């Protein structure tokens, strides 16, 4: 779905960064989020995702943990080293690893920790909407 189909105008269009190495999954979220009117930037490795945070200034980042180059958690660590202002960009760690240590690390950066398999894209969309304080998109229903 192209940006042009979204009802929101370009000025309030929010950008979501999705860092996910599995193309099926990233596409799935991309469709759902774009369907809801978000601009979606997909990166399939941690390093690119880290760069994208700086260049694209996303409103929210969805990070997988297990990725090439840098893991999602390493991206967070690298951002913190750059004195990144996490308050300006909510982060959702969306992963299928449910290790307690990973969860605690994510929480330490103030990030939401979610298990992919337990959520539908719709539910992820709802959570993102809640984080950004935007009303849930009407497009799907």
């Amino acid at each position, binding site marked *: 779905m192209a940006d042009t189909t979204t009802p929101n105008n370009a000025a309030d269009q929010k950008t979501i960064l999705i860092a996910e190495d599995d193309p099926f999954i990233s596409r799935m*979220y991309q469709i759902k989020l774009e369907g809801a009117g978000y601009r979606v930037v997909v990166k399939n490795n941690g390093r690119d995702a880290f760069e994208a945070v700086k260049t694209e200034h996303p409103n929210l980042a969805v990070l997988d943990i297990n990725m090439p180059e840098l893991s999602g958690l390493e991206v967070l660590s690298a951002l913190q080293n750059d004195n990144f202002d996490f308050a300006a960009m909510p982060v959702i760690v969306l992963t299928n690893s449910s*290790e*307690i240590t990973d969860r605690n690390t994510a929480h330490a950066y103030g990030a939401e920790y979610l298990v992919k*398999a337990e959520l539908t894209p*719709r539910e992820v969309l709802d959570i993102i909407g809640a984080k950004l304080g935007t009303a849930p998109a009407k497009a799907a229903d």
Partner: protein
Amino acid sequence: MIDLPSLLLFVASIINILIGLSIFFRNPRSKLFIYYLGLAVALAIWTSTNGLFRILPAESLLPIALMSYFGAILVGMFFALFNAEFTGIRLLPNWAVLAAGCLVAVGSLIPGVYATGVTASRSIVTTDGILVFAAVLAVLLLGGLTELLRYIWRARGLARRQAQIMALGMGIAMAMGLTFNLVLPLFHIYGYVYLGPEFTMVYLGALGYAIIRTRLFDLRLVFARSATYFLLLLSLGAVYSTLVFGASKIVFVDSASSANASWLYTLFALLTSFSFQPLRRFFERATNNVFYRYHYDSQEVINDFSKILVSELDLDRILKRSLTELCESLHIQFGQLIIYNDERVYRVEHYGQLPRRLMVAPELARLDKPMLVADELSGGERKQLMENHGIRLSMTLRTREQFVGHLLLGDKLSGDIYSTQDIDLLEIVGKELAVAILNAKAYAQIQEFNLTLQARVEHATNRLRVANRHLKELDRAKDEFISMASHQLRTPLTTIKGYLSMMQEGDAGKLTKAQQEFVGYAFSSSERMVNLISDLLNVSRLSAGRFLIQTKPTDMVQMIRDEVRQLNNHATTKGIKLIFEPPPEPLPPAEIDDNKTRQVVMNFIDNAIYYTSQGEVRVMLEQSGDRVRLEVRDTGIGVPEAAKKKLFSKFFRADNAQIVRPDGTGLGLYLAKRVVEDQGGTIIFNSVEGRGSTFGFELPFKPVTPIREVAHHGRHHHPK
């Protein structure tokens, strides 16, 4: 005219000949026995000429006197030869003894060499030649005597006893000869000269006895008692005569008043008689100390022995103590106990200084008699064997049914032969010892068996330990595998579930009713699979100790509403009513682990729908004091009585549940119990088979104990 003394001398001479012959014919080819016979004949000649000297007229006495010299020198010669042969010690060479003896003997037959005539008063008129005669005779006698004494000093066992008896016979003969032929004539008493030669019979008898008998009587008693009385008489006589002599010198110097004398003598006699007993006892003790240094009391030894056997149970200690007791009581230099088990040597115990060579099993096998005394064996293999190993006595230890072992004893410290007392004692003690050893052996074998058993148990335990460790490693590997596999499974499942949900939501265009239905089924199944994987992960986390409760304020009503809504689809397709009864008043938020509790709720409701074919599933939530109470009631198959106890254990599945739902994991309830209890809650469960079940929980709104601690202490922490 034959008088009594001469008759006695002739009789003695004949008896000497008879003794000589009867001993000689026992072994006529032996040199020793030939010398013995020679000695007997020489003594017979000497005694008979003594007899003739008394009765023949004085003028015909010269040949008799010469015959007497002849006999005497032959006695000396055969005495030397016999002793040299018997002892094996040759102080004087045989040829010298023979040459000197024969030369002097021939000389004695020629008149005028030693004696020229006999006076009317029956005195022999001697020449200077008699000095040569006397010197040769003295050398022969002293030589033989020295050999014998040196032999006694050295010899052990039977040989020593033989020599002792010979010495005794000779001692008596010499003492009597000296008394009657030398001491009494000194006091001018000539009347008993004829008695001296009589004692040659004693000597000859003792000699014969010593060389033909094997078990010789113990001389000590004879020696000890004669010494006691000899010393007693000597001292009494000395004291008495001194007193009498002294008294008569002092008291009766001037007047010889016999009346005075008689009371004095009476006083001395009384003194003497009173001093007799204490003196006797004193001498007895003194002589006993000399002769009975190695004496023991059999009964005492047997008693001590029995005490040892009764007080000890350990085989090694029994062997050690009994052997020591035996050897010390009997004064034995060396002793050995060899105990057998199944025809093999089992234990060996030694006492004292070991002989140079010890017996080996095949040699021991030859000592197969109940009792063997080396000195009593006339020769042969066994005697040789025993002597080579310094063994004087061998005894076989056996009970009535069973051979136990050997007791081997070496020389006695005194060098004496084993006496009848020793042997009787050994026979008694041996039987007791055999029984005691057998008992101790049985005891030792039980103990050894115990030890082997213990060792085996230990070995088995170690193997179990290793196996257990191995199993634990395997279990860990399994958990890791489950964890890894589950994570891997989740990725494709995310995609399946995600796209199915998007289809349902119309993201791929509007679906037909049938498409909507089918996609719904596929989606539910993917949901179930997600939950199964969560269960598996939780179980592996439990095993790995990484199962942690993380609480946050949770709206329970909302949570259950969500779950009911999600599962309603499933209930509707089964034709079951799923009813949620929320509490009448709004609930405060509960401090619980949202994710895990949600899974528990879902599990209860999902199960209820699954195991109910008709009727309803009722979910009830209410406040109960400071707790929130959830119940899920169904009208399903219920839980069989037998399965109730194990229902909440890992991987357990009731039989009827397996039929309805073959793909269940048996993890849901196990995890539910853990999740609830780790949050300080309690599980609610009751059921009637065929009628329905109620599952649920009560959870505190606020954690009773800090959650971290609950998690650390694990499942056994159930605060109430």
